[in-house]
Structure formats: structure tokens, C-alpha cells
């Protein structure tokens, strides 16, 4: 089963929930935690994994053979990302803009384009206290997180319980991360910003036909609007984590909730069984 932990708004507690859930249910089933927030991966701060393998993520960018090139301009014409410019007797490749689709090399009439690999990030695999860890890390200065996310997700083993820590927002990186999940857990806070972005996240999950449930973090601040919205939309609020200085203090030191306050383990176990029940129910209704 694949559970993704997303939010819309940043800083609502995705990582806190994803890591606490992973730690709490690891005795029930083998858990694999995937950190798909490759721009700012934070799971490692809380899990402190021993990394056993680091693999580069590369985008294939064109290299022009000047001997063969006739400067016909076909490559520049077919490139949808303006990553190649041909000016009379000069070809300029802007590899930062290249998405690595391969159109230029395939379509070059002279066979003058080969591809070389350019590293844009890494995928690290390891283990932390019995939890399998896969984390992606986009290199600083690189624009495209999706190839790194795709590589992280390709290592998912769905016979384990896979927990995905999703980046904030609702754009392509988020869609890439949560596609294929059986359940999407949306972490929010009961403030106007939290609600606004929760609605966007719910719409994203709906668009992808993924069932979702809500965790309200720092419950007690703010207003009742988030809960009212969830009631109206029939989205279950599965867990509330109170605004608590001790939780915030532990978090600031890189200690996740279920590790620093073990009494929370049971709460996360029952969160997990609630999710399993919802997913099973949905699967049954699809079969019917």
C-alpha cells in the first residue's frame, strides 16, 4: 500500500506526520519511507538513516559534433524548451533548459548529436531503525525536481507499506509524487492559509482520483473553518495534533513526535488502521 503525505501549504507538518507514521507502524509491516520533497528533503534530519547507496540522477543533454553539423537548424526548431540555438556557424546548447526528451538527437539529419549525461540530483537509499529510506536531493541551482522524484518513486516496493513525503504546493512535482498512491493524507493547520491551501490539495487529489483524509496540526490555534470545510466535503479528519510547545521544541531539534513522545505511537497506529480501513472499503466498492 502506498500512502502519500501532502499539504498544499508548506510548513504544516508533513515531515512530522510522515516520519512519525513510519516509526509507529514499522512492527506491523515493513515500512519504506520515500522523501519526494527533493528540493528541501528533511526526513533524514528526523530519521538519521545510514545511507548504503548513492546514485546520481541524470538528464541526457545534447552534445553537437561540429565535424558533422551543417547548421541546418533542425535541432533548434524541434526543441520545445529553447535549449538549442543555431546562429549561422554556431550551435549553442543551454543545458539548464534541456528536459532530456531526445528529440534533437533523433531528428538530426546528419546524426551529429549525441547525448551526454548531466547530473541534476541524487537518490540515496538506506535504513533507519528498521525503516527503509529512499530520499531524493535536487542539486542546488537545478530547476527540475521531477526527474529526481521519478527516480525515487521507481524504487517503491508496494508489498511494503510505502509512505511518501510530498513537496508543498499543487504543481507538477506534487502530482508526480502522489500519482499511484492508494491514499493521500493531507496535513493542514486551522488557519485561513491552511484552509486555502488544503482546498487546493483536495482538488489535486480529486483530479487524480485518490481518496484523502486530513490531519490538523497545531490544533487549537486559529478557527473552526478547516473542520467545517471537511464536514461539508465529507473528508474525514483522522487526527488532530495539538499546538504544544514540547512538540515544537522536539521538532526544532530534529526529533519527530512518535520518537520524542512515545505515547503518540498508538495514535499513529490507529491512524494507520483507519487508513487501511478506508482504502479496503474503497477497493471493495470499486469491485462491486
Amino acid at each position, binding site marked *: 500500500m502506498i500512502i502519500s503525505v501532502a499539504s498544499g501549504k508548506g510548513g504544516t507538518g508533513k515531515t512530522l506526520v510522515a516520519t512519525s507514521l513510519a516509526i509507529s507502524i514499522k512492527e506491523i509491516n515493513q515500512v519504506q519511507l520515500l522523501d519526494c520533497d527533493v528540493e*528541501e528533503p*528533511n526526513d533524514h534530519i528526523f530519521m538519521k538513516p545510514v545511507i548504503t547507496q548513492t546514485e546520481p540522477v541524470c538528464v541526457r543533454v545534447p552534445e553537437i559534433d561540429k565535424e558533422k553539423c551543417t547548421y541546418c537548424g533542425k535541432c533548434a526548431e524541434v526543441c520545445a524548451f529553447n535549449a538549442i540555438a543555431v546562429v549561422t556557424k554556431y550551435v549553442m546548447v543551454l543545458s539548464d533548459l534541456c528536459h532530456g526528451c531526445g528529440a534533437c538527437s533523433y531528428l538530426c539529419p546528419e546524426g551529429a548529436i549525441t547525448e551526454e549525461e548531466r547530473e541534476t540530483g541524487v537518490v540515496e537509499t538506506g535504513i533507519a531503525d528498521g525503516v527503509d529510506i529512499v530520499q531524493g536531493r535536487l542539486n542546488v541551482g537545478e530547476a527540475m525536481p521531477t526527474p529526481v522524484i521519478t527516480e525515487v518513486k521507481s524504487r517503491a516496493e508496494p508489498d511494503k507499506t510505502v509512505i511518501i513525503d510530498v513537496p*508543498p504546493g499543487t504543481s507538477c512535482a506534487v502530482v508526480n509524487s502522489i500519482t499511484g498512491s492508494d491514499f493521500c493524507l493531507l496535513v493542514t493547520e486551522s488557519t485561513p492559509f491552511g484552509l486555502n491551501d488544503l482546498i487546493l490539495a483536495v482538488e489535486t487529489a480529486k483530479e487524480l482520483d485518490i481518496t484523502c483524509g486530513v490531519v490538523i496540526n497545531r490544533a487549537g490555534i486559529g478557527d473552526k473553518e478547516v473542520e467545517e470545510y471537511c464536514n461539508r466535503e465529507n473528508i474525514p479528519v483522522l487526527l488532530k495534533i495539538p499546538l504544544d510547545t514540547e512538540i515544537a521544541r522536539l521538532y526544532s531539534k530534529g526529533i519527530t513526535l512518535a520518537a520524542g513522545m512515545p505515547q503518540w505511537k498508538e495514535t499513529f497506529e490507529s491512524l494507520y488502521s483507519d487508513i487501511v480501513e478506508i482504502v479496503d472499503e474503497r477497493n471493495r466498492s470499486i469491485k462491486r
Partner: protein
Amino acid sequence: MKEIVVLSGKGGTGKTSIVGSFAALSKSKVLADCDVDAADLHLILKPDMKEEHEFWSGQVAVIDGDKCTQCGLCQELCRFGAIDEFKADAVLCEGCGFCSHICPAEAITMKESLAGRWFVSDTPYGKLVHARLGIAQENSGKLVAMVRKEAKELAEKLGVDSVITDGPPGIGCPVISSLSGASLALLVTEPTLSGIHDLERVIGVCDHFGVPVMVCINKHDINDENTSRIEDYCSKKNIDIAARIPYDDVVTEAMIHGEPVVTYDHDNKVSRRIEELWDKVTA
């Protein structure tokens, strides 16, 4: 004209609350919300929308089933796994158009999609350029670039002193789009290990693009030890700590009232620190 972009790396550190207050403090500016996939600035600036524009971008492949001979070449060559069973998946499609060039039956065309909308609004504090990326759409970077361009043009037309930009979290495409060429990046962080980790990465991006930075430590009193770590790190990198803002529930209260914290409770210590921060940023 000065262009100030507020970033953080990590989400939820207080970018939007600070930009909302800057809006009230600054006399002469245009505001831009570049967090296009989870925009929140409008919730405290109460914009009265004056212009609405469509943002067409992000081509996707469409396969004409009548022309398709099911040869499978497109599926074989697509590197994004976007073609399955002779249909193109609009979400997975990268928009490269490779398939449309190689299809022997010329059955594939590239169609533009409505990727979002952008707006120009009046607020009690001046003009705001903002946007909404369509749900699950690509090209947030291009929409960010559009918002910035419009905000700068509007600022020039109105002859104001600055553009103040609320940036997105992270370090990727939309961040680079909102950052490159700006006069100053104000980085809002918090004294948590995640906040520090993410701050270091966003500083790396600013260095990479040659944009000068200032750091603001928000909620500095939730962990003094980590606040000192940020201060040490910044002093080694020769980065100015422009403000230390304490934790206070007033920030959430102001948000619920839909108001910048500096107008909601002018005498609060948070408001005072933000005023000092604004003075530093514009010095």
C-alpha cells in the same frame, strides 16, 4: 527601482505574513505573489480584482485515434512514459513534442492548455499582481515569470520605488524564476533543524544566481541554540541577520482577521521587529 523577493526554502516560516506587513509599511510599491500554486497573500490584502487574464502554456500531445496506425513508435521513444495504449496522458506529458515530429501517420498534434490565470488587483496598500496555477498543472515557473514581468512593468508605469515579491517554497523552477535578477532576497527562516537545512540550500541558489541576501529569523525564541547556529552560519558567510522576530499568537490572530500584523496590532513586539526589518531591507 528595487525588487525585493521573500523566500525561505522551507515552507511555513512566515514569508506571507511578513510580505503582508511590508505591504502596509511601504509607501510606494507594487506587490507580486509568486507562490502561484498555493497563493495566500490575497487572504490578508483583500484584493479588489481589476484585471483577469488567462495563462495558456504547457503543450500536451493529443493522438488522433482515426489516423493512428498503432505502430507504437511514439510509445517507444517517449522518455516520460506519457503514452500508453496509443493515448497520451496529459499529466505525464512533458510537452516536448517529440512524438508529434516522429509519428509516421501524422496523428499527433500538440495542444496548448489553460494552465492558470493571473490578475491585477487593487488592495488597500497598492496594486497586487497575483495568479492561480490550474490544479495539477505544469509550468509554474513560466507563470511566476509572467507575474514578475507584469509587476515590474506596472511598477515602472506607476513610477513606484519597489516591487515586493512573496516567493514560493523550495529551490527549484518557480524559486529560480522569482529570484533571478532581483535586487535582494530576504530569506525567512526559523530555528529548527529543518529550517536551517533548507536555509542553507536556498542561500546556495541565491549565490548561484548572484542575488544578494539578508536573513530574518522568525520565531527566534522557540530554540535559542538553533538561533545561535543560524547566526554563526550567517556570520561565517558574511550574511546580515536583518531581524529576529519572536513567536507570538498575534500573527495567527491577524491572519484570521485578514489583516497584516503591523496594522492589526501596531504596538505588538512582532510588529515592531517587522518595522525594523523593513527599514533594513530598504536601507
